[in-house]
């Protein structure tokens, strides 16, 4: 049985629903020779800011049970460096190019959306709103519905590209946050970013991450991510969802599709196995074939409950 894996997400067609998650796939080039990049539905870059950033001091990562914490500090080459050094390669990969971006201020977000949206070869803009809002005492932009709505609306006005908002899971009510993003004009939602977490070295009496807190990712968070995707899907906000969190197999991907996502992103698993995205795509195809699912889109939201 041949399975049709094609999906359209935020108006952009993808050869399959598997997208490499931001910050876990470098700028694509890092995985050349380690996997077949054209086997991916899409590839999301490391988060880009207006200016280059050197990132946080080490230690930046530590392992936890079935997961890891990172505080890379959004190290990136900046908009210009990206356009000059990274995008040309990405355009040759035979996969959809998602560009993740962020700012430290409202204006930086808008500048980034505008500049990146103007680059040919950028298929989808993904807005990372899990960054500390300096004006509001460092609380994430993404936790306050009115702030988020305005921020998304401003970015929305700055570009015509498909604009996907990546939600933070560190909230009481993900649906309220999702609704605010959609009201602001989001074409899709990515769910979820990392969960704020901490690890302590009891012998050294210090946090294992230089910055104290970091973001938890990996299989450990999958059940939380799946719950949030399902909650938002059930709210019927009218935009497609990209499910993220601990996906490591085709069956994991299918679970997110059933919960209501129409693309899924593979993050931490690419560290465990650089071929993970392509393998998940293969396994998803095999899963569909085994289950007699002709079009992968038939899985989307097909959970019986």
């Amino acid at each position, binding site marked *: 049985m041949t399975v049709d894996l094609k999906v359209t997400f935020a108006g952009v067609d993808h050869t399959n629903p598997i997208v490499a998650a931001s910050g*876990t*796939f*470098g700028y694509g080039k*890092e*995985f050349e*020779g*380690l*996997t077949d990049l054209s086997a991916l539905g899409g590839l999301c870059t490391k988060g880009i800011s207006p200016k280059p950033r*050197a*990132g946080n001091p*080490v*230690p*930046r*990562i*530590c*392992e936890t*049970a*079935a*997961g*890891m914490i*990172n505080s*890379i500090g959004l*190290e990136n080459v900046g908009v210009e460096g990206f356009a000059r050094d990274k995008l040309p390669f990405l355009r040759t990969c035979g996969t959809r190019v998602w560009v993740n971006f962020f700012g430290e201020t409202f204006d930086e977000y808008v500048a980034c959306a505008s500049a990146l949206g103007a680059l040919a070869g950028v298929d989808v803009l993904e807005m990372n709103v899990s960054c500390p809002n300096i004006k509001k005492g460092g609380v994430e932009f993404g936790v306050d519905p009115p702030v988020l709505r305005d921020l998304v609306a401003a970015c929305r006005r700055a570009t015509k590209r498909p604009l996907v908002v990546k939600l933070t899971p560190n909230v009481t009510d993900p649906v309220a946050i999702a609704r605010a993003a959609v009201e602001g004009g989001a074409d899709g939602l990515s769910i979820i970013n990392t969960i704020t977490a901490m690890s302590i070295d009891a012998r050294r009496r210090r946090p294992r991450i230089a910055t104290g807190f970091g973001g938890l990712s*990996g*299989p450990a968070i999958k059940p939380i991510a799946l719950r949030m995707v399902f909650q938002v899907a059930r709210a019927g906000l009218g935009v497609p969802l990209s499910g993220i969190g601990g996906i*490591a197999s085709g069956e994991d991907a299918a679970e997110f599709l059933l919960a209501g996502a129409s693309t899924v992103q593979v993050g*931490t698993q*690419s*560290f*465990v*196995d*650089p*071929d993970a995205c392509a393998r998940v795509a293969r396994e998803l195809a095999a899963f569909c074939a085994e289950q007699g699912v002709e079009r992968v889109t038939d899985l989307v939201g097909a959970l019986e409950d």
Partner: protein
Amino acid sequence: MQYVETQLSENVRLAGGYFVLRIGGCTHVSAARPGQFVMLRGDWGRDPLLPRAFSLLRMAAGGVAEILVKTVGRGSALFEHAPPGARMFVLGPLGVGFPAPQADKRDLLVAGGVGLAPLLFFAEQHRGAPIELIYGARSERDLVLLDDIVLSGAELRVATEDGSRGVKGLVTQALEERLDALAGGGAAVRLLCCGPSAMLDAVRAIARARKLDCLLSLEGEMACGIGACLGCAVATRSRPYRYVCKDGPVFDAGDLA
């Protein structure tokens, strides 16, 4: 390059909590150079999640990769108990190893703990070159693979903190003494060092004071081993950060910030 699934051939217990994993089916790693490493996972679930980096001790005939491990945490403990036949997943060779000996320089290798592995590999690979190995440990029972070192032809000096074998004292004292004894305070010497970070720092300081070439094999928190996670950053002079897995693990001591 991909993770290759293979099996543990032998798990050789050494003294002091050290052991050598002999992993068959590693022809893909055969061309590895001393100082390069592999990422290794055992046959466990999603915890420990991440593979572990191990410098190669040597590549034996028939594609058998050998690594020297000491149990310090969860991953190494699982490897310690892995019996022959246990499944292993191996990615490599990775990183940049030690540059080959130079015609006009004597190589002084300074090793501590599992840091012996890449240096012994270096000595075996460059048999015949003028190589000396200074090997430090707390006590005699923490010294491993001494016969192999001797067989490699490297001139061996041992320093133990309790004096139970070789010179009593830290490996860096033995190093300073040796440098003093060499013509010109060791001016025609290159230092290659791998071991605990305190030892690396001390050797780096000696190299700086004596203006010697010095190569250090570093460790760092690694998730991916392939330059993607940006976890293994190390601050350098040439760039804000370089990465242990891609740009190292061997760094020129002079470039470290």
